[in-house]
């Protein structure tokens, strides 16, 4: 398995080594080592929870800088619909489209338009009778990665269609080549304007070993500050949105689901809720469910860690922006048709990440050791040892990543015991240092 490239990173100089992100990470991917956080790459799903919760601004979403635009002679902007909800007192999406042109983009292709096509393809796909139900949306890359790591039986439920970002990039490129026949492919730069770091990772990792159709990913926040400046100078925009209610609806939870025109759907947001829903589907299924939309961020894409506005405020703005728009002006060539190019060239595969050992006997020995160490730990899950829970700490000890002395609760008990013994006149060197936690290594043979 190739190394997964991430876009959540840490500024070590700002990190205080507090336990905020440690406790919040849904996949227990963070540890505190040597006074600062460390992200375990194989476990990280780029959900951005740690960025949201860090009060020292040490966690960052890495994305591409605006000056990457200079690398191309023809620049295409792909604004995510979440961008539209960022602006206060803006009643016409045309301001944003025109603003992006003024920022230097030669062409703007709204991802909301591609989302409407994906909704139409999804409706056709759901009518097939040979597919595993419920069908799970492929739009949130965090969810796809989470499923690939934890839910082997749900991998095939993920809809095998490309997400709107990719469909948008492909169409925009084709259109640009048609409109400007003198352009060479390498002249064209496609810039996705993203609300979240997970989409940055999605682009960086490519599809089926190929480069992604998107070249660079800009953050909604960076673009927002550029846009408010240029938008002020537009009196009445000559351009307008080419998307409808459905496409813009994709920015917040429930929008994507409502577009399947069928009440048998579930739409959830927030990574913890999504995990609960997946557990339930995996355990016993949910009756009569056709479609599942899961958004790692609260509120949906408007809740991404690279946005400016509060997700619920952004959603309220989007509601009024889409109010008098047509339902879905972007439709496939004919009803019920899914072009081959809309299918993803690769399926999501099961990739378990937290195997103790590839050797079953060794894994069982380690597990037994973890259980017995855990019994000696206080169960406070305080995080002072650098692991999110006492159980995770026990796992780290057995994996050799830390040692039992890091448990401050046990160390304090040990220290008091030591002081009492000293008062009684017991010599210092007679005191066993590893008294609290007995490691049940095979050498010691100390199994209970």
């Amino acid at each position, binding site marked *: 398995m190739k190394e997964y490239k991430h876009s959540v990173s840490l500024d070590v100089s700002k990190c205080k080594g507090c336990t905020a992100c440690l406790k919040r990470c849904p996949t227990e991917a963070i540890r505190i080592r040597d006074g600062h956080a460390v992200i375990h790459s194989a476990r990280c799903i780029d959900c951005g929870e740690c960025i949201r919760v860090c009060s020292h601004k040490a966690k960052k979403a890495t994305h591409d800088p605006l000056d990457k635009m200079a690398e191309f002679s023809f620049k295409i902007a792909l604004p995510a619909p979440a961008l539209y909800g960022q602006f206060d007192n803006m009643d016409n999406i045309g301001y944003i489209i025109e603003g992006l042109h003024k920022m230097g983009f030669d062409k703007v292709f709204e991802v909301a338009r591609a989302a409407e096509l994906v909704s139409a393809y999804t409706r056709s796909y759901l009518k097939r009778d040979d597919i595993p139900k419920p069908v799970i949306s492929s739009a949130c890359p965090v969810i796809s990665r989470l499923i690939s790591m*934890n839910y*082997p*039986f749900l991998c095939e439920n993920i809809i095998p269609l490309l997400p709107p970002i990719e469909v948008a990039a492909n169409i925009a490129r084709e259109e640009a080549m048609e409109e400007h026949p003198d352009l060479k492919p390498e002249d064209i730069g496609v810039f996705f304007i993203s609300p979240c770091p997970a989409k940055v990772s999605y682009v960086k990792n490519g599809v089926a070993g190929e480069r992604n159709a998107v070249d660079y990913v800009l953050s909604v926040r960076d673009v927002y500050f550029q846009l408010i400046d240029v938008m002020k100078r537009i009196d009445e925009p000559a351009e307008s949105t080419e998307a409808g209610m459905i496409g813009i609806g994709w920015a917040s939870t429930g929008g994507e689901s409502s577009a399947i025109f069928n009440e048998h759907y579930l739409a959830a947001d927030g990574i913890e809720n999504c995990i609960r829903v997946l*557990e*339930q589907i*995996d*355990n*016993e299924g949910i*009756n009569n469910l056709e479609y599942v939309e899961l958004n790692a961020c609260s509120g949906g894409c408007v809740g991404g860690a690279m946005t400016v506005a509060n997700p619920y405020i952004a959603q309220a703005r989007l509601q009024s922006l889409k109010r008098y728009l047509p339902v879905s002006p972007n439709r496939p060539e004919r009803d019920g048709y899914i072009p081959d190019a809309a299918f993803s060239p690769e399926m999501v595969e*099961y990739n*378990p990440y*937290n*195997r*103790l*050992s*590839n050797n*079953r*006997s060794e*894994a*069982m*020995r380690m*597990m*037994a050791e973890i*259980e017995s160490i855990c019994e000696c730990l206080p169960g406070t899950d305080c995080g002072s040892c650098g692991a999110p829970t006492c159980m995770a700490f026990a*796992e780290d000890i057995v994996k050799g990543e830390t040692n039992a002395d890091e448990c401050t609760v046990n160390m304090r008990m040990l220290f008091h015991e030591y002081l009492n013994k000293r008062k009684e006149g017991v010599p210092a060197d007679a005191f066993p240092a590893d008294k609290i936690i007995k490691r049940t290594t095979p050498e010691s043979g100390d*199994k209970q």
Partner: protein
Amino acid sequence: MHEPVKFHFNVDGENFSSAGEASVMVKKKLRQLGFPPDVMRRVSIAMYEGEINMVIHADGGSADVTVEDEYIEIVLADKGPGIPNIDLAMQEGYSTARDNIRALGFGAGMGLPNMKKYTDYMHIDTEVGVGTTITMRVNI
């Protein structure tokens, strides 16, 4: 050869919303141990059904999971009302769950049949008014 690994869980009968958490924990442990998805799924479904049953009918109980060389054993023990007629309880669709439980989507009468279906061995030890102990094994 190695020592069997054991996990013990108390299944809380007071709190219906926490029902099913022990089977989620077991699934995580089996994943860490590197078991194939099929084994993980069978153990977690059988255990999930049993856990829900204990909460609905018996005010909770205990769950003990042992990973042996050849199989994974799940022992679910409660001090509930017992099962008066096992043959009837094993029939698909037979249920004594109350309406409020059915309203939550449970009580479809598939609990025990599913536990049997997903395991290689199942034994029910029950006495009316004393309790029920169900032992299940999934071969590795």
